[in-house]
């Protein structure tokens, strides 16, 4: 994090100023070090829209933390498809397995860590202390404190950011950030009418009162209410929301299928290269992600029928192939101070640099449900005096292929840059050769809260490899969209 840059003094991003498209494959950029040529020409957004956008995403000034938080490694279960390999495993089982795999890999059995934070999106009320219970069930010292975090699909990344901040501040020395979700273990609730009757029943004192309440229960009240997959305020599912965004940004079926194919090809290659050998511990009969289709082709993807956006004015382009499936799985990331790592003889892979959250007003259709990272990323990069060209790896969670492509389109749009980001033009172009280089959620699957930990550990390893190859600092951006119009972005650099 750069301590000398405040939002008001931030230089203009370099990319919009460039005339040539940023389609370069080399990463030899020095933009971050360039003198801020336009520092004096502070923007004054002229439209109310730009003002609204700017005020909606506060941009705090960066302050250099007292010490670094470094990622030492990670572990996850292979991700299963809903109702398949992990159908009999609970959230707690999966999270415990992910933590125990990490403990085994880094020799942490019986070790008292500073803190463990993790969470799940689909969570039983009985799992109010899911992470603590998982720690107690793991090989860690039972005196390791733990707490639950829940921020929809950003849960895992947010758990990490919170712990990394604590480490930077010296509040703790070592931690595990994680996440888990099991759609196969989703809580089924009773309907409102039965729930209210049962609550009243628990307060009833006399047999007469109880009999009266019981008599009020009708057979139809016994129908279970499954967990909602739609946004509570709009009634639209996440896929239907994204279908609207997809049309608004004109993302084609072909572009989505190409991104999905790249995800499968890249993930399969990473497995074949042994990339995941020290990132994944097989679980319950799975050694690879169950959703991975190494042999898929554009032709096969093109045969799939659209599943979202069928009732909108425009072509429906989102299929089961270019959308993430419901998945089961867990992940865990070991993060610590450099001193703690040295004491235990562990080698840091990457350091946490900075993070930024954002939210959008999707309720009134102002922005798409999954478009918050489109605002978080520019704020984060500008605060750190970075552009896309300064990044070796860009990891954008593939909720849907079109989510990634809509974000890229927004950043490339002159109009969006001016009207909504308060810039002079487009924010920038992502070099596709640096995007999701070992595959992402379309191929791996997306057990909501586990995705953050998957990306963090893989990206830390990529950064360590890149630094070993080039001898210079490598940087990565991680961006995760989430239900509720939320988004979290983070920067890592090689340790």
């Amino acid at each position, binding site marked *: 994090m750069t301590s000398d840059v405040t939002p008001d003094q931030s230089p203009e991003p370099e990319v919009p100023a460039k005339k040539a498209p940023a389609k370069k494959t080399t990463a030899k950029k020095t933009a971050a070090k360039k003198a801020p040529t336009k520092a004096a020409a502070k923007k004054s957004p002229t439209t*109310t*829209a730009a*003002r*609204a956008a700017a005020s909606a995403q506060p941009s705090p000034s960066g302050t250099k933390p007292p010490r670094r938080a470094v990622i030492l490694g990670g572990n996850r279960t292979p991700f299963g498809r809903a109702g398949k390999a992990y159908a009999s495993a609970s959230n707690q089982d999966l999270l415990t397995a992910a933590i125990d795999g990490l403990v085994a890999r880094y020799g942490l059995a019986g070790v008292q860590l500073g803190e463990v934070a993790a969470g799940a999106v689909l969570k039983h009320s009985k799992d109010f202390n899911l992470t603590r219970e998982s720690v107690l069930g793991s090989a860690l010292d039972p005196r390791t404190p733990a707490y639950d975090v829940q921020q929809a699909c950003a849960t895992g990344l947010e758990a990490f950011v919170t712990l990394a901040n604590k480490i930077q501040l010296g509040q703790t020395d070592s931690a595990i950030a994680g996440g888990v979700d099991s759609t196969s273990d989703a809580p089924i609730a009773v309907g409102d009418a039965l729930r209210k009757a049962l609550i009243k029943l628990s307060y009833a004192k006399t047999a007469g009162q109880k009999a009266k309440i019981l008599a009020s229960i009708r057979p139809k009240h016994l129908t279970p209410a499954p967990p909602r997959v739609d*946004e509570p*305020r*709009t*009634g*639209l599912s996440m896929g*239907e929301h994204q279908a*609207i965004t997809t*049309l*608004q940004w004109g993302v084609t079926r072909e572009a989505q299928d190409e991104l999905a194919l790249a995800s499968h090809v890249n993930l399969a290659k990473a497995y074949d290269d042994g990339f995941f050998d020290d990132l994944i511990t097989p679980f319950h009969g799975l050694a690879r992600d169950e959703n991975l289709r190494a042999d898929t082709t554009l032709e096969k993807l093109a045969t799939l029928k659209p599943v979202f956006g069928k*009732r*909108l*004015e425009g072509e429906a382009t989102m299929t089961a192939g270019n959308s993430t499936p419901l998945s089961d799985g867990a992940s865990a990331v070991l993060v610590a101070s450099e001193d703690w790592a040295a004491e235990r003889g562990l080698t840091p892979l990457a350091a946490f640099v900075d993070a930024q959250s954002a939210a959008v007003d*999707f*309720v*009134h*259709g*102002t922005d798409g449900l999954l478009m918050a990272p489109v605002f978080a990323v520019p704020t984060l990069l500008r605060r750190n005096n970075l552009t896309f060209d300064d990044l070796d790896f860009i990891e954008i969670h593939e909720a849907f292929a079109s989510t990634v492509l809509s974000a890229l389109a927004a950043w490339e749009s002159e109009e969006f840059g001016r009207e909504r980001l308060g810039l002079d033009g487009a924010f920038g172009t992502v070099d596709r050769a640096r995007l999701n280089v070992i595959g992402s959620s379309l191929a791996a699957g997306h057990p909501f809260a586990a995705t953050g930990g998957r990306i963090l550990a893989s990206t830390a390893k990529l950064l360590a490899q890149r630094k070993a190859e080039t001898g210079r600092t490598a940087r990565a951006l991680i961006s995760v969209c989430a239900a509720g119009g939320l988004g979290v972005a983070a920067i890592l650099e090689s340790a």
Partner: protein
Amino acid sequence: MRHPADRQAVALPEIPGMGRVYARTLTARGSRRPALEPVEVRVDDVTIDAEHLADYQRILGEPVSDVAPAGYLFVLSFPLALSIMTRKGFPLRALGMVHVRNRIVQNHPVRIGDSLGLRTWAQDLRAHRSGTQVDLVTQALDADGDVAWEQVSTFLAKGVRLEGIPAADDGAPRVEFSAPVPTGRWELPADTGRRYAAVSGDRNPIHLNPLLARVFGFQRTIAHGMYTAARVLAAVGPARGEAYAWDVDFARPVLLPATVAVRAAEADGARGRRADDATGGASFELALWDPRSGKPHLTGTLTRLPS
């Protein structure tokens, strides 16, 4: 709304029960006289029942709070409108009249514990191209006598022609509805009408029973118009502020069960505009439509007012 001073006030001790006023709708024939009686009904010291308000808020997806959403006083005062419409001297037959438009101005919040004075009258009997229209006006006065809330509900008696009444000013020609980008979608189950009837007290059989709905010319039960409208208002949420004008035109009934598309979005150019900026027009555009046919169920606007 200017309150007409020259009317005979009929003070009621309390808001009449819906059962009683509905019974009167069955017998009221309509006088067919081409004029409205100069009469208004009044009920003083009306207070809001916290449990009833919570039931109303919950069924609409409003947060349970002490402030009544604008549609709640429609529910509370509806028996007063019906009791005007079922008076012997009322020119039109109440049964079968169609609620075609509703305008509510919420000048300031109405809360649990407030003592309200309600007064309701009819005005502007007029000839419409498809029948005869009349406005039912209700005001809710706070303890200081200020109008906290007021409503104009326009009803249409289809096919009824009365001699010697002025023609309706239809205003601007109707703009053809073109389905916008939705901000939401609702699945409305078959019992939507029955559930809202239980809360609102409006047990008009067209909302309850498919066979009775058929008798009145509908293929299935239909959703209460003010239920769908109030849910769209709930979709605007707290962005509507404390004071607002809320206009709704009902186009086609929602036959249950139904899937409907919704739009409750900031109007073009409204973003960032201050509530006391009177130049800009509507703050939010509202619409509910059938996503298959693209035909509208309702359209409307919400305009924030300085509070």
